[in-house]
């Protein structure tokens, strides 16, 4: 079927900020779709509020809107752009939900926009649990027993028919937000209420529990001619009850016979037809009873998903790209398989390796939250590994997680773990269960016993046992012979053991094992991911390493640059760095280099096979990277763009002979080593907050006294704001030291004077070694003390004086020059009493690079990459900081709703998962948009509840007055109310929770509060506001926790009351920029 000619312009909705359950995978799919559709000659209009995405690069779509993904904004865009079609299936759940709402508003009909891919009916049928159930029963498929409820009464009724334990699942939410498993009636009440609140249409499903069954996923594609193919099957290592996003998963399915697999395949095909997803990909989940084989359908996602990104990377079949082409009417057989070139896309990939995906958690960021896993997703990223066996892939994956495990290693001594703890860690699914399985095996637990405790299939446990047994053999062999035989070492490598892990077993070190291995000629072989198990010649150079007999890499004579990616997403290192890596690749391709990407994150654009000339899907460890360097012998290796991960490898790679390009390793060290850095800063006569490092408790006390409280303390051995704490007095300090467990000369603690009420400023600049040009200066909204990754910021700065900005520029130039930066540099400053302090320098790409690029229209990362290979800024035409004629606000998005019990207070430790950008002509409007895009829209009317700490009481008066003027009502706690009252502000006083009143909670529950302003006081003694903040999260009410945030909010509300929001594409913004 030829492609459709009745449509010319297509609107694509992106998925917005990175949140748990909706991450880079939608940048990957959206980017593929944009490329694919434009390749076919369509005009693409794109909406996404996330500036850190490749898809929002001005070159990706014809018209790009970085605007909030709300039905209203989409409606405006439709009105302005008049697209012929809307493709809603590439922007995750956000894309689907928004499309449905836009359709419900009648906008699509009004402007005759067709929904392509999945239409309104299909989305409804798949997403509405009741409708879905009916459809499944109609085609004779089995589901868990269930009943719907729209209020708590109905829910209780439903419980009676289904019976405990039950799964409670809200309709139309992502990653199971608000869902849960209830084992008791109390739990049931709690989860049901939460679910009702979270569901877009206040609908929850009460469902029979099939905990412990085997969980499977199929990725299905269909074209307009009704051809259906399965791209990939995925088996979850963790049984039903753990969200697939939080499960270790394996492709292809391992323990299904062909009969069972075909039954599942038939069901999947019947489902996609019945639901009526006309074209594109869908993800269908099944559960299988391990004792009887009964198969039930769990859910269908009528769109591309996290799993389809995984499936694409696992098989080499580009699901999103093909989905986009199918959406415009092409059929599968009309599309070529890029990898084999000769064969069409109408086939089912077959693979000859095993793929393991392992989720990455960040529970350490939320110490109050238990690291227990359930049906609501909690992981923030994932890593994927490819091996010839499950054992190899599993171990490769574990070292790719970057949680300082180098495989299934022995971080804990199993002898020292009590039995009770092992049993608990096995029975209650948690983030480190995989290691406890190993400890249990070491302790002699049988495979059956572990299966009983974990419900994990014995096949997996048996494989882990093989690893444990080999480990024992290696140890023994070494003990007996004092060396390792070639066969033994080879076997270990085949089982995925890392050099470091082997070193651990024989009491050696990584480098020695590496040498030994090389001496014995045990080197990895790189093999192709080719969609067809070698049945056809494959042309795309997409490789993984394994220890086999044949290497399939193809060498070229071109100059090569290798780019090291960032590995799995985590809080603090996410899509922004992938964005930078992709740009490096694009830029260097432009200059004619062969680019080689190394990364292990399946969600990303960087691991798309056509982003770089070559792709190595490998973990970013010294060993894995060096193996590729040995093979490819690149002319340059870039460590600046993948975040802290590759940067941390720089020194060792260089020592091993890798040609690191850009800022030198020495300079990197100078910026990262606190002592060296202090010296440098002194030499440059730049202010730094007073600081010191303490090697004992006494010394810590002394330094603290000298510097003066409040202080910021952190253990020296963790990087990146981790475990950083704001300390107000000696008591606090001692507490911290106690928790840090160790303060010694080996593990000193670092102490900084905390600059209170200082304005934080972020600067991104690029330098070619001679010239330094600033990309952007960003003024943070929240004051210093709130991690730069968590605070909102505005570009250009809106309150700083010219003099201060001049100082900031000068310091930036001085630091970049002193560090001989070649490439990007990011500096954080704090401005207090008109003095500029430098907080930290990152000689690498930063989180804000994409934001700056989108705000100013300057592709900073590309420019930096070109500089790194020797181009001058003058050659590149970037010699002057560009001043935008508009205002861009970055706001961060926080995952608190995922971690019940965690207080939402921000601090020096980063907690956000993603960001959005609001862009407009004034600060107020841009800020308003940023809030809306972040999902915490500012109210236009209603009651604002205010409770602020003493230090903020003076500042709140003005804010309250403004709110009152704008027609808001104000409620406040006693202290705040008193201050407002005495300033003639009409205020309703509510009782304090600490004094036994739950008046405010009641108001929140009833939905009578539309905004909360609560600045928590640092010292204790004040009554606890935590329940209020938790309740705000639960009820989805915006809660502002800083006075600066409150000011900005008032500003935003004011501007929106003055004039309606409008939309404008970034191409328009940038054009205007260039004009000035």
């Amino acid at each position, binding site marked *: 079927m030829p492609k459709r000619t009745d449509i010319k312009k297509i609107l694509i909705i992106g998925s917005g900020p990175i949140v748990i359950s909706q991450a880079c995978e939608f940048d990957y799919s959206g980017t593929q779709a944009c490329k694919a559709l434009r390749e076919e000659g369509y005009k693409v209009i794109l909406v996404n509020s996330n500036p850190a995405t490749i898809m929002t690069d001005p070159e990706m779509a014809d018209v790009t809107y970085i605007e909030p993904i709300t039905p209203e904004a989409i409606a405006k865009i439709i009105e302005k752009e008049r697209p012929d079609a809307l493709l809603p299936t590439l922007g995750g759940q956000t894309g689907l939900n928004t499309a449905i709402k836009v359709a419900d508003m009648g906008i699509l009909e009004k402007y005759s926009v067709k929904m392509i891919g999945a239409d309104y009916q299909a989305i409804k049928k798949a997403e509405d649990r009741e409708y879905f159930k009916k459809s499944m029963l109609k085609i004779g498929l089995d589901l868990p027993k269930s009943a719907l409820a729209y209020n708590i009464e109905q829910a209780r009724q439903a419980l009676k028919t289904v019976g405990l334990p039950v799964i409670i699942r809200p309709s139309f939410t992502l990653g199971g937000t608000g869902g849960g498993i209830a084992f008791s009636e109390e739990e049931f009440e709690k989860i049901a209420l939460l679910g009702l609140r979270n569901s877009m249409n206040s609908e929850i499903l009460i469902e029979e529990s099939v905990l412990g069954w085997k969980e499977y996923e199929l990725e299905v594609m269909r074209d307009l*001619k*009704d*051809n259906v*193919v*399965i791209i990939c099957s995925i088996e979850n290592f963790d049984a039903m009850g753990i969200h697939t996003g939080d499960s270790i998963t394996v492709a*292809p*399915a*391992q*323990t*299904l*016979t*062909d*009969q069972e*697999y*075909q039954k599942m*395949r*038939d069901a999947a095909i019947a489902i996609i037809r019945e639901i009526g997803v006309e074209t594109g990909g869908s993800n269908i989940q099944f559960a299988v009873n*391990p*004792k*009887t*084989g009964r198969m039930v359908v769990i859910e269908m996602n009528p769109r591309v998903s996290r799993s389809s990104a995984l499936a694409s990377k696992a098989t080499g079949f580009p699901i999103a790209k093909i989905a986009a082409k199918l959406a415009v009417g092409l059929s*599968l*057989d009309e599309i070529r398989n890029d990898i084999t070139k*000769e*064969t*069409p896309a*109408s*086939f*089912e*990939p*077959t*693979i*000859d*390796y*095993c793929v393991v995906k392992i989720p990455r958690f960040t529970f350490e960021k939320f110490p109050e939250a238990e690291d227990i896993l359930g049906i609501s997703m909690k992981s923030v990223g994932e890593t994927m590994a490819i091996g*010839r*066996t*499950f054992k190899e892939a599993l171990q490769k994956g574990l070292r790719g997680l970057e949680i300082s495990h180098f495989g299934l290693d022995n971080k804990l001594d199993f002898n020292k773990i009590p039995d009770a703890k092992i049993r608990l860690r096995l029975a209650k699914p948690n983030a480190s269960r995989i290691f406890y399985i190993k400890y249990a095996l070491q302790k002699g637990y049988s*495979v059956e016993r572990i299966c009983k405790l974990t419900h994990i*299939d*014995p*096949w997996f446990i*048996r494989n882990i046992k*093989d690893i444990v047994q080999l480990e024992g053999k290696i140890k023994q062999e070494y003990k007996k012979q004092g060396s390792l035989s070639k066969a033994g070492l080879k076997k270990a490598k085949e089982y995925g053991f890392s050099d470091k892990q082997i070193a651990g077993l024989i009491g050696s070190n990584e480098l020695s094992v590496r040498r030994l291995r090389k001496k014995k000629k045990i080197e990895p072989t790189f*093999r192709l991911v080719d969609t*067809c*198990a*070698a*049945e*056809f*010649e494959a042309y795309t150079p997409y490789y993984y390493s394994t220890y*086999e*007999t*044949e290497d399939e890499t193809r060498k070229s004579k071109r100059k090569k640059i290798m780019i090291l990616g960032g590995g799995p997403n985590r809080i603090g290192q996410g899509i922004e760095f992938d964005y930078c890596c992709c740009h490096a690749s694009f830029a260097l391709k432009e200059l004619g280099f062969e680019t080689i990407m190394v990364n292990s994150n399946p969600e990303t654009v960087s691991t798309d096979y056509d982003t770089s000339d070559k792709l190595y899907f490998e973990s970013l460890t010294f060993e894995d990277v060096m193996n590729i360097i040995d093979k490819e012998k690149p002319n340059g290796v870039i460590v600046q763009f993948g975040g802290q991960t590759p940067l941390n490898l720089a020194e060792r790679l260089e020592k091993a002979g890798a040609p690191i390009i850009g800022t030198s390793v020495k300079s990197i060290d100078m910026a990262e080593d606190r002592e060296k850095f202090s010296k440098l800063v002194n030499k440059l006569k730049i202010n730094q907050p007073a600081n010191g490092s303490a090697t004992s408790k006494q010394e810590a006390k002394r330094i603290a006294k000298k510097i003066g409280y409040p202080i910021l303390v952190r253990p020296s051995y963790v990087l990146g704001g981790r475990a950083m704490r704001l300390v107000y007095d000696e008591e606090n300090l001692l507490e911290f030291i106690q928790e840090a467990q160790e303060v010694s000369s080996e593990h000193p603690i670092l102490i900084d004077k905390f600059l209170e009420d200082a304005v934080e400023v972020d600067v991104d600049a690029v330098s070619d070694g001679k010239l330094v040009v600033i990309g952007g200066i960003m003024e943070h909204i929240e004051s210093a003390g709130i991690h730069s990754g968590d605070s909102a910021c505005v570009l250009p700065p809106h309150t700083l004086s010219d003099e201060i900005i001049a100082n900031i520029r000068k310091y930036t130039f001085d630091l970049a020059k002193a560090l001989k930066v070649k490439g990007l540099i990011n500096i954080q400053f704090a401005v207090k009493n008109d003095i500029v302090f430098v907080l930290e320098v990152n000689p690498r790409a930063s989180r804000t690079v994409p934001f700056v690029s989108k705000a100013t229209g300057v592709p900073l990362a590309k420019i930096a990459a070109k500089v790194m290979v020797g181009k001058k800024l003058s050659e590149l035409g970037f010699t002057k900081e560009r001043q935008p004629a508009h205002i861009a606000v970055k706001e961060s998005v926080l995952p608190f709703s995922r971690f019940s019990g965690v207080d939402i207070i921000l601090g020096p430790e980063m907690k956000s998962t993603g960001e959005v950008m609001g862009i407009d002509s004034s600060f107020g409007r841009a800020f308003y948009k940023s809030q809306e895009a972040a999902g915490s829209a500012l109210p236009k009317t209603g009651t604002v509840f205010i409770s602020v700490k003493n230090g903020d009481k003076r500042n709140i008066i003005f804010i309250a007055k403004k709110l009152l003027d704008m027609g808001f009502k104000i409620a406040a706690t006693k202290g705040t109310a008193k201050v407002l009252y005495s300033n003639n502000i009409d205020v309703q006083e509510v009782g304090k929770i600490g004094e036994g009143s739950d008046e405010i909670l009641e108001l929140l529950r009833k939905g009578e509060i539309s905004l909360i302003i609560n600045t928590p006081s640092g010292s204790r003694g004040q009554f606890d506001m935590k329940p209020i903040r938790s309740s705000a999260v639960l009820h989805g009410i915006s809660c502002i926790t800083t006075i600066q945030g409150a000011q900005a909010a008032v500003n935003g509300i004011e501007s929106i009351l003055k004039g309606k929001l409008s939309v404008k594409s970034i191409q328009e913004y940038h054009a205007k920029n260039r004009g000035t």
Partner: protein
Amino acid sequence: MRAILALEDGAIFEGVCFGASGERCGEVVFNTSMTGYQEILTDPSYKGQIVTMTYPLIGNYGVNLDDIESCKPFVEGFVVKECSSLASNWRSKETLEKYLKKNKVIGIEGVDTRTLTRHIRLAGAMKGCISTQDLNKHSLVKKAKNSPGLLGIDLVKEVTCDKPYLWQKSRSSQLDEKFKVVVLDCGVKFNILRNLERLGCRVSVMPASTRPEQILEEKPDGLVLSNGPGDPAAVTYVVETTKKLLGKLPIFGICLGHQMLGQALGAKTYKLKFGHHGANHPVKEIRTGSIAITAQNHGFCVDPEELKKCGAEITHINLYDGTCEGMAHKELKAFSVQYHPEAGPGPHDANYLFKEFINLLTVNSKL
């Protein structure tokens, strides 16, 4: 125990024996199905062949009583990357290793099967010798070279049934049998019989050498030419039988049966470089344009140009390489496909062909 697979061109693949020990020669082919090793092992079409699985992890779900395509394994040898020591599946009765031992099939694991597959893809399917006894590479290569191979060899006679029998396996309550069908057993897969039975056929299975008159004596409504091993050109007697029955009975050919039918119509067959063995080949039905993902297992093919000359219509083509996958001869009421609509293992997309056969029988019975 060590085991070696030697190819006639001198390539050597070493591994560890996991099934029976011994020595066997055969044509080495690869199969790209990720599931279904039990069906593959028991598929009589693999007689004379050493099968290597491209999927590296085999044996995961063990072996059960149901998923068999004949009463025993026929492969000459079985080559995998890793055989699972544990069988995990509620229907599993034993591990693959035990099963192979019991059935005297040599299995070899630890082989770099991707390299082997690439080798075959580039050099073509070739003869090989697998051994746990003779670990001398030269001698094994020689044995491989000297082995008979497939060309010109009639393997059908080794796998066909001794005497006719009535297929009645799965059903306890007999559906009314609408049609009588004779299946000429060239190495038939049970799933063909199961499918016919499911659609209401009384299925008589007859030896490949059955004479046409004997078949007609049964007064069947239709004839199925089954799949089977080896070179179609060597099975002249089935071709002769088919020729005599053409036009007298509706005929449905599957795989080798398709090749027999082709030859009976007057077309030639030829050998593919490394054959089609897997469960993911897209086949397009020319009439509707719709695509089925099919199970395939054949090393030979019918020449489509010749078929056309014989008055047959090409109904299906392989989208991978454009080879002929199906044909029909309207007047003679015969049609056939090169792939496996019965799956076992593989997708069920082409299952509709059995219904088409039944339709053909229905129409024919009304004449």
